């Protein structure tokens, strides 16, 4: 209990409980741990700022590194030094007169981000477009299960047939896809009953999807809670307090 590990775990548990008390209501104990949390987070950010980011990614590239035996592992590229003034410009945001200079690093960050989006769009959505182009006309009308188009059930060597149940599933998927897309058209006045119906349907189908997400997310949330309980009751209470 009073070993280093014992204390470490004990404080871990106290902190955990401290944060849990907010479930009851905002109180001084929670406030204390909240502020400690913020402080530690900010402090740690400053630690890794140099050790994990600036030193390896900027400083070492700028001054170069030496391998065993005094040979050059990496030559230094002095031009990296220009990053310091640029980064410094960001601090003008507090000055009323010169705050515009602070926009320069911001502008660079945004520029770098924007430029990447065009290729990223293709990389991300091109295969998805293709994956959405599913066959709707069945070539096999047997009432086989939805899961059937599988080699193990029908021991076919290659999947050629489009089974009825598959076609139905695909049809619904297509309707969902198109009606949801239609729901997100903003500039078009939906005069026709059909379009109004479609968008309404789109919204309902969306809700099905969201329900499914909710269901599958719940799993993880509870798993993490279970993991915490394991930490408190098994790792701490059983092993440290009872010394089991």
């Amino acid at each position, binding site marked *: 209990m009073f070993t280093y590990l014992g204390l470490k775990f004990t404080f871990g548990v106290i902190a955990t409980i401290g944060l849990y008390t907010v479930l009851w209501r905002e109180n001084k104990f929670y406030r204390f741990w909240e502020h400690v949390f913020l402080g530690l987070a900010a402090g740690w950010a400053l630690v890794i700022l140099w050790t994990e980011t600036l030193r390896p990614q900027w400083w070492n590239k700028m001054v170069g590194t030496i391998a065993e035996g005094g040979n050059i592992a990496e030559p230094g590229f002095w031009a990296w030094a220009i990053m310091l003034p640029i980064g410094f410009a960001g601090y003008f945001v507090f000055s009323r007169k010169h705050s515009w200079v602070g926009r320069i690093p911001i502008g660079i960050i945004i520029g770098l981000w924007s430029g990447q989006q065009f290729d990223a769009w293709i990389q991300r959505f091109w295969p998805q477009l293709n994956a959405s182009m599913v066959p709707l006309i069945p070539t096999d009308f047997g009432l086989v299960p939805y899961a059937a188009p599988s080699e193990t059930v029908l021991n076919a060597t290659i999947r050629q047939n489009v089974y009825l149940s598959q076609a139905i599933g695909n049809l619904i998927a297509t309707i969902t896809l198109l009606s949801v897309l239609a729901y997100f058209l903003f500039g078009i006045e939906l005069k026709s009953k059909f379009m109004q119906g479609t968008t309404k349907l789109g919204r309902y189908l969306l809700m099905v999807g*969201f329900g499914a997400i909710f269901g599958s997310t719940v799993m993880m949330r509870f798993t993490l809670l279970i993991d915490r309980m394991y930490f408190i009751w098994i790792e701490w209470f059983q092993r440290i307090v009872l010394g089991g």
Partner: protein
Amino acid sequence: MQYYDTGWISTVFVLLIVAFVLFNISRAKKNSEVFIRRIAGLNAIDEAIGRSTEMGRPVLMVPGLGDLNAISVQALNIFAYITRTAARFATPIRVCCSQPPVYAVAQEIIRDVYVQEGCPEKYDTDSVRFLSDRQFAFAAAVSGTILREQTAATFFLGEFYAESMIFAETANSVGAIQVASSTENTQTPFFIAACDYVLIGDEFYAASAYLTRQPVLVGSLLGQDWGKMLIMATLALGILLTSFERTKLTEDTYDFEKAGEVVKLDATRLTQPKETTMYHIFNPYQALPLATPREKRPPVVTPVAPSGGQ
């Protein structure tokens, strides 16, 4: 990009969307009287601010956890509108940021708003705060703020992850009106469950055009619509084509390694997914090995550091 075979089509597709946006922007500059469909969540903004004005409690705005990108910039654009209204009623505001660059931009935007509204003295630098770039430290701090300051209206717009539930339920427990939106689909259902108004997916990007009616934004919104219609059309076409092709009998098959060389089969069979036109368009054939191979650069000799090197 790889241009061989059908590789260029994707590039053209994106350039087309870009063209749509630019064209509509130029069009909207001439006439910005364009219809935009009603977005419930946005009409609630004034109501929410009004309520917090009556109660004399602050309005809380959180631009999400995302780095400085389109999403957080868009969130800040909406917040600029909210702040404008709040400034007119002298309602106190809080903006909690989790990324330093976002914080920097927020500082400037919010100050500008107060200046433009002619009341720079009402602007309190500490009303825009950087809390933590650590997800759950940020979550703890924000829910602490909500509970202590009893915010009457909360706006969670941007890139939210797991913490969305913490924010939404905490704000709900102090009875705040909540308008929320996450570009992360996985979080939207939680906002739907716990918030009063939710902007789903794309509505978030439509928001600033809807609120400010700036020609550029309105135009680009129309362009996006065209883009989405292009996608819908492509999908419809592809689906029909694929459906019919999948019913065709064939004797041919293609060698994808050898740039789609045709190989005869001994028996007829149904067309396979990989043999449809659409599959070919979206999956260019493998490029053949280089006809004229490149010559090699001589290996680099790493020089030894002069004795001056530490």
